[in-house]
């Protein structure tokens, strides 16, 4: 299931859906990118990165190659802006407006689901009995954006020494499926309405994209933030 829906807040203020990603079945790869809402058009970077990564060789199980692909895809995207004009103010503006987005990636390997993330979001876990749980990726700190690795120390307020991908692996002996979602699902995951939460989980289990889209449409005001699910 791959679902990418605009949040109610963005519908109201007329701005774009700043999330993007993909689910490529034959490469067993899932991606979610969540653009920073303070970035004017962070969806541009999120979409370019998704496109760049999807065109790379993703069939490998080698985690170092996967990491290298993520880095290379990001470099290609940032070059789109950084090679236009070698002016620090322009570069910083481009970074702020287009290139601040989180990256969550899942690679299904022979024995493991490998999850790499730079920035917050959720891991969706489905165990062998089919039950679904959510693992929040949020350490309470300022969001980590990979673009910080491409900027000079004195140009950034946070993570001056750069950021890195965090890594988790989940054994296929223990899990049927592992996916990722942007933090837009926090409103349903943390909802007091248990019946509604159960309905959401039931649709996740079904794998039906259209049913999930209709669920979000019916409960648009609950989903205040953009939602992307790759599961």
């Amino acid at each position: 299931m791959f679902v990418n829906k605009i949040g109610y807040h963005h519908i109201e203020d007329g701005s774009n859906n700043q999330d993007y990603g993909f689910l490529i079945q034959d490469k067993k790869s899932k991606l979610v990118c969540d653009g920073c809402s303070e970035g004017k058009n962070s969806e541009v970077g999120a979409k370019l990165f998704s496109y760049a990564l999807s065109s790379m060789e993703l069939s490998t199980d080698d985690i170092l190659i996967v990491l290298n692909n993520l880095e290379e895809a990001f470099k290609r995207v940032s070059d789109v802006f950084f090679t236009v004009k070698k002016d620090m103010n322009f570069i910083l503006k481009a970074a702020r407006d287009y290139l601040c987005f989180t990256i969550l990636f899942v690679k299904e390997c022979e024995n493991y689901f490998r999850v790499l993330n730079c920035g917050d979001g959720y891991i969706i876990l489905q165990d062998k009995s089919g039950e679904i749980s959510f693992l929040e990726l949020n350490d309470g700190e300022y969001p980590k954006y990979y673009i910080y690795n491409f900027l000079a120390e004195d140009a950034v307020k946070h993570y001056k020494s750069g950021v890195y991908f965090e890594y988790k692996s989940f054994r296929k002996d223990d899990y049927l499926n592992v996916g990722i979602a942007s933090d837009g699902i926090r409103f349903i995951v943390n909802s007091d309405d248990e019946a509604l939460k159960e309905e959401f989980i039931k649709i996740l289990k079904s794998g039906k994209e259209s049913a999930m889209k209709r669920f979000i449409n019916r409960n648009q005001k609950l989903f205040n933030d953009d939602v992307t699910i790759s599961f």
Partner: protein
Amino acid sequence: MSNYDETVEIDGLDEMETINTAIDDLDTESITLIFTGLDRSGSMQTYTMEMAQALNEFKDALTNSKEAEEILIARADFSNSINIGGYKKIADYDTSYSAAGGTALYDVIVEGAAKLKEYMEFLKKEGMRVKAVFAIFTDGEDNGSYSSLSSARDSIRDLNSLEITTAFISFGGVADTISKKIGFKNLLPVASSATELRNAFNCLSKSVIEASKSVVSTQDDFFSI
């Protein structure tokens, strides 16, 4: 007194879903509903074979379009009485045709509009994004309806206000004036010939496909493709 319960219930399905298409059978969040009201009055007898052929080609055109999965279509026949079917996938569209009797035009408009709005409301509550086209094909003015011209006009005014595309194909020119009186926003007048009949349904299929592609309702230029 009836000896049987006339209400058929299927477990887990709303009645709306037994008459039309169940929500779980739809693999999309966006749908375009097409209402086709077809004149089966006696004056259409000359064109029985051509109508069946035109309807077949109309169905084929929709089936072969990229938007096929996002279209549901209802067939409504009117002559002395009316028979309005549910909104089904294109593959289930009946293309058979025969003609005899009067022209209960106002009845099919009033009843058809009510059923369209009802199903639209149901789909929207389920989270579907819905557009609709309400199309009538006729070669003549009303005779035999229980409903009045003003009821038909109210129904069409209501559909227009809901941004549903209202389209009228007038075969042979007699019904041109009535379409304006009722308030259809789009009129396609065609001469009464076999060729023009086929062209009319060809135009209708292209217009329906364009309408289902566009994000917003194409209320005023439906036949301009």
